[in-house]
């Protein structure tokens, strides 16, 4: 066959589609350009991505962010957020060398120490109680010292402190916050420890303390680690089991598909939390068992979605094309079907993690999951239940933490769904 004109060889697309143009632009700019197209969803995805990233960083290195270890007793119990604890503190002359109440103990027959209080306050009672406790200790000990102070009452703070300044008394007991206010007027006096011998805590805790005196902020931060471990692990296990099963069932069909679908549908129709409770109750409390229980819950979800997608993709022309070039079944499944099914999975994953965290918190709330020594939001929720009226902060902050993390993952997943479905919506 002769040629009438030159052989028309097509040249490469010079910006034949805007996709090619887009490739030339940097990745970052593409993300910014996305703002125009996706509007709200773009904001959802970007904000939640940062949030999720933040949570992951916190979970990896909670020690960097938390002021204390989660089980440390940092101060008085039931401290409200930022509330400075009011404890009875010993005030002594600056040069006296006394650090705590116990230091005022004297030999049996020596002159009893004189300690002053402002009348009308509970400090006298505290002083009495604590002295008795220390005295009991000393009586049973071998030092031969006793603590039986004489308590002098003064009408006002000024009179008390002046007396101490003038060495009329050995020490004074005040509420710690009171002394702060007049500290500057009495430069020769200083604070010693509290009556129980601990250092005075002069600051509050941002989120308060719980019923045994642990810092709630630290527990929240440390709790992130457990929550995310449970969330990601169970989501990953569900994915690695559910996705291949869905692929094989959709691809192979027949009896295998029917039996498996029956099993999965039964699992799926079980109310999630109850199933998790049952499994956790049977297996016993440990992190691994919680993860297993929650994974079982989500396997059917992946299975169904992947199986459905597989069935659809199987009918596409390019699968027939793959058969016609002689591809083996294995290759068709993994190189042709799987990559076209995966996008739907990635999106479920994010929402799955959110749900898993929620379920995990639910399980430990019910006391079914973790040993109580691990810092976990669910456990904290359970602890704070009793005190919801008196110490609302105990339950509120762990609750908010759960909500924020779950919200972030969910928003990320939903936002990505909007953006990636339908595929190639930009044509």
């Amino acid at each position, binding site marked *: 066959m002769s040629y009438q004109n030159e052989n028309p060889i097509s040249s490469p697309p010079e910006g034949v589609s805007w996709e090619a143009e887009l490739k030339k632009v940097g990745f970052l700019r593409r993300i910014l350009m996305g703002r125009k197209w996706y509007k709200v969803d773009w904001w959802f995805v970007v904000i939640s991505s940062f949030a999720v990233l933040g949570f992951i960083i916190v979970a990896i290195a909670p020690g960097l962010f938390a002021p204390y270890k989660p089980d440390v007793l940092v101060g008085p119990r039931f401290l409200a957020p930022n509330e400075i604890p009011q404890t009875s503190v010993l005030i002594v002359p600056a040069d006296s060398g006394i650090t705590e109440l116990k230091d005022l103990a004297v030999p049996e027959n020596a002159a009893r120490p004189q300690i002053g209080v402002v009348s009308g306050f509970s400090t006298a009672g505290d002083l009495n109680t604590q002295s008795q406790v220390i005295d009991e200790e000393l009586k049973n000990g071998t030092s031969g010292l006793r603590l039986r102070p004489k308590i002098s009452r003064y009408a006002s703070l000024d009179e008390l402190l002046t007396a101490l300044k003038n060495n009329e008394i050995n020490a004074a007991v005040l509420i710690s916050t009171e002394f702060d206010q007049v500290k500057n007027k009495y430069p020769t006096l200083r604070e010693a420890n509290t009556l129980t011998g601990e250092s005075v805590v002069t600051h509050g805790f941002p989120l308060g303390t719980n019923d045994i005196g642990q810092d709630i902020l630290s527990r929240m931060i440390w709790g992130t680690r457990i929550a995310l471990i449970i969330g990601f692990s169970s989501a990953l296990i569900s994915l690695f089991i559910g996705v291949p099963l869905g692929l094989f069932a959709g691809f192979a069909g027949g009896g295998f598909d029917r039996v498996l679908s029956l099993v999965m549908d039964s699992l799926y129709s079980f109310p999630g939390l109850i199933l998790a409770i049952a499994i956790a109750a049977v297996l016993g409390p440990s992190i691994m068992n919680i993860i297993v229980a929650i994974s079982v819950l989500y396997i059917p979800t992946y299975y169904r979605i992947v199986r459905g997608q597989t069935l659809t993709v199987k009918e596409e022309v390019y699968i027939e*094309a793959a058969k016609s070039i002689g591809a083996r079944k294995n290759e068709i499944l993994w190189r042709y079907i799987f990559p076209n099914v995966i996008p739907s999975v990635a999106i479920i994953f994010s929402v799955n993690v959110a749900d898993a965290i929620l379920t995990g918190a639910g399980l430990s709330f019910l006391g079914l999951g973790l040993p109580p020594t691990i810092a976990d939001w669910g456990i904290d929720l359970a602890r704070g239940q009793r005190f919801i009226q008196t110490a609302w902060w105990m339950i509120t902050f762990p609750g908010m933490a759960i909500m924020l993390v779950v919200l972030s993952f969910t928003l990320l997943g939903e936002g990505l769904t909007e953006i990636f479905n339908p595929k190639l919506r930009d044509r």
Partner: protein
Amino acid sequence: MAKKATRTNVDNSARVANQGETLVKVDNIRMHFPIQSGLIASLLNKGHIPAVKAVDGVSFEIRRGEVFGLAGESGSGKSTIGRVVLNLYEPTSGKVTFDGIDLSKLSAEEMRLLRSRMQIVFQDPLASLNPRMSLGAAIEDPAAIHMPELTSDERREKVLSIFHEVGMNPPEAYYDLFPHQISGGQRQRVVLARALVTHPELIVADEPIAMADVSVRSILLDLMMQMKKEFDLTYLFITHDLATAKYICDRIGILYLGKMCELGEVNEVYSHPLHPYTQALMAAVPVPDPKQRRTEKMPEGEIPNPINPPSGCHFHPRCPLAQEICSQQEPPLRELRPGHQVACHFAEQFLPKK
């Protein structure tokens, strides 16, 4: 003589030497697709399952080196036959032979390996390319499957050279692109390239240009003919467009509702169509010349349902010449002129007077 399926392709000199011999023999194939009916319906029908009789007894041969056309309207079975020839569908009955090898006797693995010698180009290039595979990977795949002796560099070289052959230059620019990033015409070239990479002997082209732009079609046809010369190919060209078929095919078979009406050399069939359906079909094709507007009247009615085709000659309800025998007896394919077969009881009246 049953030749064992060989993975190695017959090389060009052997192909050329055997020009004209039968490459594919289709022997009375039927393809019936059963319709899913409910329990009650099938009980009522006494176990007889209704089926779509897509292909209902078709026989023909494809000779090495030719472009054999299969033409027909919807329901004719032409696309189904294309797939049966490649054993992508197993025929309900009948036999397909490729280079002497009976396809029904092959194991699944033998058939899979035989595919390197027979390939298909689909109608919709976008749908037949894996959206998640780059063009280079898509074309490389058949080579990876059938030529394991090549290293990955050699395979890449092969892909690049095929890109060049089908006119996509520079080849490197296209290797990493994805199907949705190129135009329709380019996609059809890619699909052709994929079919060529194992150097097959037969290519089944199922409406290969139907979805391309009009001004691009002649280029694609030309490319296909170029490739045919270069690779010593044989084409089974499936189309509904009789004008294109006339331009590109050597021999042609006209199908109606799963049966072959007429079969012969293109020049013969087009200048002396002997079957009433063929005549109507050729008259119906729009002619791009306002001085030659159609005057012939078109047959009444429409194509019947392939589940319940008319008795005897399928075309009889619409045929202006139908007589009683047409509804009772199916006309056999008879050779009325050299190399020209017709399935009509009364085709003789159309023979040119000597």
